[in-house]
């Protein structure tokens, strides 16, 4: 592949295998370093038709998505959906076999862009013979941070992930959860513009998970973009502004949680004093079904709940309970995957 120093994307390399094109050059390094408009206004991640094929297996299938700066973006999918492969492509650890992608306005694998990316891998392992502080110092050096800031960066990261007291202990003595915390600390070094977290709470207890959510919220407050790769939907519901659901390498749904779940409101009613005949009128409000003494209306427009209740009362019904329910992300996820 060739590389140019042009400030604009200039070259597209034809991919021999798939016939798709792969972006190979883009924003100059200086524009990123100097915080030019392109560097700060371009999306954090932008992919168009990104694909990765391993022999006969298509790991990523023409993935197109945009992650805006400053948002927490959840990347959801079942095991083997291709989530980690996408992360590796975005980090330049693997080469796409098709499509285009820009990360922080720069082509995949750009060294200066990587200086602004913090990454916690799914398989987090750090040098077991180094202390936590030494690991953080190592990454400060690799990031090219000024030496005078190393101690403060390390201390701050350890404090954020609640490992300050274990800073002088060797990583080999850490539990898995502590190593994952350390990995999160490493990802936070240098105040990165983009933090990519691959299953960041897989080894953590409930307290640790809560802490990670707080850290992610803190990152959003300070303007960092968070790309959260997870299969824990509850986690995504708590912290994400937008999500993409990926299956077999293809995004099957993308949007904010409201957009994804807003059209799936459900109403649970408990009404006495009405005969079977009133049910027929419910079809106007949504799909209904009986669950013992409850009547469940799926897909009801939340603004029409008052109208429905008013109609039931006018018909002489005694409305004992009205419980609006939103479909959980998990339910929507399963529905999309056709496992329900």
């Amino acid at each position: 592949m060739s590389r140019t120093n042009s400030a604009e994307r200039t070259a597209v390399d034809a991919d021999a295998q798939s016939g798709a094109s792969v972006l190979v050059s883009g924003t100059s390094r200086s524009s990123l370093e100097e915080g030019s408009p392109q560097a700060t206004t371009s999306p954090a991640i932008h992919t168009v038709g990104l694909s990765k094929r391993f022999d006969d297996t298509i790991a990523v299938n023409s993935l197109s998505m945009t992650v805006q700066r400053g948002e927490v973006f959840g990347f959801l999918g079942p095991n083997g959906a291709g989530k980690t492969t996408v992360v590796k492509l975005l980090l330049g650890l693997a080469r796409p076999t098709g499509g285009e992608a820009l990360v922080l306005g720069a082509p995949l694998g750009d060294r200066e862009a990587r200086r602004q990316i913090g990454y916690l891998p799914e398989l987090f392992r750090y040098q077991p013979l180094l202390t936590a502080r030494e690991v953080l110092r190592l990454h400060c050096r690799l990031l090219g941070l000024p030496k005078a800031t190393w101690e403060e960066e390390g201390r701050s990261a350890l404090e954020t992930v609640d490992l300050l007291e274990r800073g002088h202990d060797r990583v080999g003595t850490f539990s898995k959860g502590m190593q994952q915390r350390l990995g999160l600390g490493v990802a936070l070094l240098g105040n990165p513009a983009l933090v990519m977290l691959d299953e960041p709470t897989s080894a953590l207890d409930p307290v640790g998970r809560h802490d990670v959510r707080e850290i992610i919220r803190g990152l959003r407050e300070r303007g960092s973009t968070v790309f959260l790769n997870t299969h824990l939907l509850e986690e995504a519901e708590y912290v994400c502004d937008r999500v993409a659901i990926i299956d077999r390498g293809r995004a099957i749904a993308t949007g904010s949680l409201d957009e994804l779940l807003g059209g799936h409101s459900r109403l649970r009613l408990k009404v006495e004093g009405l005969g079977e005949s009133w049910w027929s009128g419910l079809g106007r409000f949504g799909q209904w079904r009986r669950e013992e003494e409850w009547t469940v209306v799926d897909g009801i427009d939340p603004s029409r709940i008052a109208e429905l209740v008013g109609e039931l009362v006018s018909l002489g019904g005694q409305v004992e309970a009205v419980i609006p329910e939103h479909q959980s992300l998990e339910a929507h996820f399963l529905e999309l995957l056709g496992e329900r």
Partner: protein
Amino acid sequence: MNATLTIAALTITEAVRRRLLLAFVTITVLIVGLSAWGFDRLRHTNTLTSGESNLAVPQALILFMFMFSFVLALSASAIASPSISSEVESGVLMTIVTRPVRRTEVLLGKWLGLATLLAGYAAGVCALEFGVVRLASVKDHGNSSHAITEIPHPGRGLRAPGGWR
């Protein structure tokens, strides 16, 4: 270059902290100690004349260093060969290569670190061995020094005894 030196420093730090290095040092000291005893016996045995002894000491030293070079080469392979593959498998390297470093810098840094470590180890062992030979063959410092100076050139060392006569 900075990244290369960082990886080299990391490689040395990790190697120094491994128990493997401690085992190497322990075994080396034991072997050098045994060789010192052997050279002392060689020098003080009654079955050899001083001329034969002068012949035997450098030859034994050459043999010892020749064998040591093999051990060193094997040790270098044993230490270096899994250093990258094991880090790839364990995932340790994953966090390094996502930083703004080239993969060639990582490779070069690993090589530089291991090469520095092994060169230092070889120099240390040679100095130690030469020292004990000198101490063990104190009867005639001139001869023992002569033997030592022949070590870096085994071919010359093999010819040297004839020259001494």
